[in-house]
């Protein structure tokens, strides 16, 4: 480890619930900041892409000249976590994208936007997350995690090397809703609007801090 022991985790703040991600990181005592421009992007050691509207995030990051820089940093190994719209932004392929919509990419998967339907179909339910007992000191802690899905995407197809950490069954078919691949983590659901910080904890411990040792 170097003099700056605590990595700086940035939250992309173009649009969406970036403040909730920031508050979760602050609650955990992490070193964190909002990312709105190229200067802050260059300073961070890890990135969170928040929930929001994926179409809007895609268009704004291009309009504000952040699209290529973010894509490049992700490709060169920046630990990055995306929730909901963030998951879409981390997918190599988007099924039926809006006109002009592109993702940063990084995870070899195909995502379907608004996969569960419109807002009236949005839901919450308990998820079984593979390896969740790992988190925290309490090994006996529940493996259940309350997933909040809001106009959420799911993973339609995924390369075999991508680790599927949780899935949701819909009409007899299992759809991945949490995946990990190299430096990247993505969830269809929104841990940031719950009081449960275990997903953020997993990201920081497994993807951010281990990457620096």
């Amino acid at each position, binding site marked *: 480890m170097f003099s700056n022991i605590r990595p700086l985790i940035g939250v992309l703040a173009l649009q969406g619930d970036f403040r909730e991600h920031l508050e979760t990181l602050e609650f955990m005592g992490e070193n964190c900041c909002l990312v709105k421009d190229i200067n802050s992007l260059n300073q961070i050691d890890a990135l969170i892409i928040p929930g929001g509207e994926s179409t809007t995030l895609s268009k704004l990051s291009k309009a504000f000249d952040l699209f290529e820089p973010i894509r490049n940093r992700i490709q060169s190994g920046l630990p990055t976590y995306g929730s909901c719209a963030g998951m879409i932004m981390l997918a190599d392929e988007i099924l039926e994208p809006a006109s002009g919509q592109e993702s940063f990419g990084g995870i070899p998967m195909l995502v379907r936007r608004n996969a569960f339907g419109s807002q009236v179909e949005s839901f919450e*339910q308990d998820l079984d997350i593979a390896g969740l007992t790992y988190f925290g000191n309490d090994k006996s802690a529940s493996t259940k995690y309350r997933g909040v899905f809001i106009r959420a995407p799911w993973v339609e197809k995924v390369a075999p090397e991508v680790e599927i950490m949780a899935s949701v069954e819909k009409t007899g078919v299992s759809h991945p809703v949490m995946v990990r691949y190299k430096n990247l983590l993505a969830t269809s659901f929104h841990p940031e609007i719950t009081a449960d910080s275990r997903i953020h904890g997993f990201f920081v411990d497994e993807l951010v801090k281990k990457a620096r040792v």
Partner: protein
Amino acid sequence: MTSSQNSSSESSTITALVGTARVKRGMAEMLKGGVIMDVVNVEQAKIAEDAGAVAVMALERVPADIRAQGGVSRMSDPSMIDAIKAAVSIPVMAKARIGHFVEAQVLESIGVDYIDESEVLTPADYEHHIDKWKFNVPFVCGATNLGEALRRINEGAAMIRSKGEAGTGDVSNATTHMRKISGEIRRLTSMRDDELYVAAKELQAPYALVKEVATTGKLPVVLFTAGGIATPADAAMMMQLGADGVFIGSGIFKSGDAAKRAAACVKATTYYQDPKIIADASRGLGEAMVGINVADIPVPHRLAERGW
């Protein structure tokens, strides 16, 4: 790639809960920092989406036309809303008249993402608002002060917008209402516990919600602003006054170059703290909507007076 259907990871099959307060309020959280634009047809909806709007409000006439043409203003034709839903992938909102719970049922049944129980339309009930807890679709409601906001939240609103004065291009009432709501919130946070009972009485709002606001220092739902926003600087000022995001009604499609103005307002909303960026966004936008001074509108014709 392999199909996800073959995945062996454990799958969660527990019954999902739809329409919970968290899901409805959370939807509004995802719109934060964004601009929601009024559109009257597919073409405008696409311009809004391309400009980076986070959602569109589908309606037949923008408030400026409702104001100019008069008459009773109602829910839009479901076919028109369907066409807009088909044309864009961002969320589509639609307006129901205050108290018109059947218009709301209709809008829910056609799958709009959010219902605005709106004073811009002619009220259908001068005593009751819609019981919004009965719906799975979330509602946004207007408010001019904290008491009104909390009454709407008590009825199930999952998002609040300050009312301003719609269809004017005059931002003064939006400013007044944002300052009023945030000032009243700040006042609550400075009170002793035993003073909150009186505050609840004076605000005409449920004590539990008053207590919650006093503890957290914010509304329990997202607060957008609306009514009279016409320029990038207007939008940025509302953000600096504490709005989570901005509704722009007549301000965009009643102006000279709608696409450019829409993108400029989005940019100013994202970078609301950076005057240089707001200056750049304000350059060469062409003609802004002409507008009316709120002071010139007789009080009975002011939309913000509707709702209670």
